[in-house]
């Protein structure tokens, strides 16, 4: 039985996004995948905590898909983390609601691969920038999966973008099969 995946998608200007559109189109129709477009559901940024928690409870794996803004996520993702991952529910002594579930981040980033790392002008690798997310997953007892990262160089032509979208689809399918590390 394939595991269910909740894709938490956040893009405040989705209408202008090429990369995230291609990625979203590649996975939103997959069976067992719930594509949850946060800026579409909460245009007033007013997150319905109870609803979000019940969505999380009914899925086996969580995917956070968003562009990489200021070495992090768009504001609504932060709001979502702040409000939904409550103490006593997601973490803390009594908070085991998410334990054992998978967490995978999907990031689109404008900078090239070379700019990340000790030599580049961003000074750190994307893996290092992802530490807060990794720690969050860890605190909730979730399994941190290798992030799926699409960089500017992968979006240069429609062909390369289609290639990235196909890889993303395969990645999500792999995540749905228990035991295999995506």
């Amino acid at each position, binding site marked *: 039985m394939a595991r269910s995946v909740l894709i938490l998608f956040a893009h405040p200007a989705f209408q202008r996004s090429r990369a995230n559109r291609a990625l979203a189109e590649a996975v939103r129709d997959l069976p067992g995948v719930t594509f949850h477009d946060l800026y579409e559901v909460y245009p*007033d940024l*007013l997150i*319905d*905590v109870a609803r979000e928690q019940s969505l999380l409870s009914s899925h086996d794996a969580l995917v956070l898909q968003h562009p990489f803004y200021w070495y992090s996520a768009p504001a609504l993702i932060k709001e979502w983390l702040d*409000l939904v991952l*409550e*103490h006593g529910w997601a973490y803390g002594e009594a908070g085991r609601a998410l334990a054992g579930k998978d967490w995978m981040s999907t990031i689109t980033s404008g900078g090239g691969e070379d700019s990340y790392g000790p030599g580049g002008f961003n000074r750190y690798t994307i893996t290092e920038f992802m530490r807060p997310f990794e720690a969050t997953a860890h605190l909730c007892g979730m399994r941190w999966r290798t992030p799926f990262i699409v960089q500017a160089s992968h979006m240069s032509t429609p062909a390369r973008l289609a290639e990235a979208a196909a890889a993303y689809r395969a990645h999500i399918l792999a995540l749905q099969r228990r035991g295999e590390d995506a």
Partner: protein
Amino acid sequence: MEHPSFLLQAFVFLVAAVISVPIAKRLGLGAVLGYLIAGVVIGPFGLGLFGDPDSLMHTAEFGVVIMLFLIGLELAPALLWRMRTAIFGLGALQVLLTGALIAAITIAFGVDWRPALAIGFTFALSSTAIVLQSLREKGLDATNPGRDAFATLLFQDIAVIPMLALFPLLALAAPRGEAEGTALSALPGWAQPIVLLAAVAAIVVAGRILLRPLFRFIARTNMTEMFTALALALVVGVALLMQSVGLSPALGAFIAGVVLADSEYRHELESDIEPFRALLLGLFFISVGASVDLALIGANPGLVLALVAGLIVVKTLVLYFVARVMGRPRADAALVALALAQGGEFAFVLFAFARAQGVLSEALAAPLVAAVALSMALTPFLLIVGERLASRMARPAQRAAPAHIHTHKPRVIIAGFGRFGQVIHRLLAANGVTTSILDHSADHVDMVRSFGTEANYGDAARIDLLRVAGAGDAQLLVIAIDDAERALQLAENARKHFPHLKIIARAFDRRHVYELLNRGVDGFERETFEGALRLGSAALRHLGARAHQAERAAGLFRRHDERQLLMMREHWSGDDNFEAYRSAVNARRDMLAEALRRDLDTHGVTTPDDAWDTDSLDAETQKRA
């Protein structure tokens, strides 16, 4: 033959039309042919149910006048200017070539050159009424060939004026008595063109300066029938003025229409006059059918049929040639040529005039009139042939959607332009969305137009008005009118007649929301809810809440209230069962009050922001330390 009473005649016409037109339509022959057949059947040469088709045609010609007025309304001066090469190229070439060729053929048959010229140029004219009505029926009126056909017909209508002026010069015999004397013919020659120009200028100036305030004044009375009366008076008045100076009334009505084409009352005028046009044109077609002299054709079938065939063949060939010379694709040229191959209603007038002026003899005129009538009756068939031929000739790319005349297609229709609709319009306009506005208040429409926005006067619940406002092509209808009952009516009509249209509506209260939803609207907003909610949020702030807290409280209240509104919909079954709904709402309200009280007991606030409240985390950390 005794003249039957007016009501009896009207009854005969209406019944004949009601029987024959639907049958013709069902058989795919079109309404025009239906009317023509009805005319042949009930006419003096058929069942003989009425006597004098000529006098009937005179009345019915007013249908042609109204049609030209409506066509003028559709054509703003700028659009007309863009058609100038078609009018004066296609139209002029066609009339001159056809006239000369037919005259030459007629001379070859031994007729004197003077009547031959009269016959040639009369035959060059086609039937505005039949062609435009048939094209419209087939949805071809806004296509390129449809526009070419219109341009040619327009030139022909203008060409009638010099023909009427020149025919007396072609006389063989002395004129028989006073021929259609007009006020104009009493004037000296040099004054005539001045009077003609003055009449046209009068229409243009009056249309620009006088008519708009007059329409506004009438519109403010909110009496639809007065508006219709004024519109009809306008058309009749223009027709009379034109007739008195010897111009074609149809041409005058067309000019009046063009003058009013960019006024805010255009849509209302169109939908008010439309029914008169349709019925009077029907009457006109019936009278054409009735004037087909079956006895004459029976006595001389060879001559009449040869005339019809010759007329149609020559006109088709010349038109096709001219259209090709003007660079039209083959398919378009074929369609225009076959559409305009018949003789026109002006032929009846011109032949009668020529006879009176002594240009044509009675013996010559009678078969010519019969041929013209017969060729007009054949038009729908020719058009069917033309369409087949055109679609076979067209390259696949050209076969795609026809190019439409409408220059801008509004994406959104806003019905109601009071305080509510204005905000919606401004938001949409600021985001580059084209809108078409309908409002029943002349003051609102005036005010909007003074800011350069397109707005039209009329009752938006009327289907015909919605259609002319562009509901057929628009994506969305926003109902923003301040009359709850009319809003429901509008929602129902729009849903039924424009199923593709998305509809969102201003709702007044809960029951109005349910009634709107029952009529299939896609979205709604209660008109006072948002304002009240924001003022409530302000109240919380003035009581000491922080801005973000108050804002969240209002937002959560909105979400909760909207859910509850939709949840309670199942308990709503119309005003009759209002009590059942009220008790269901009350029961639920008790439950909610209980829930709210529980929230207040635990947190002192109703906003679930537990995650920002670190008390439990602090407690756990201290315990661990």
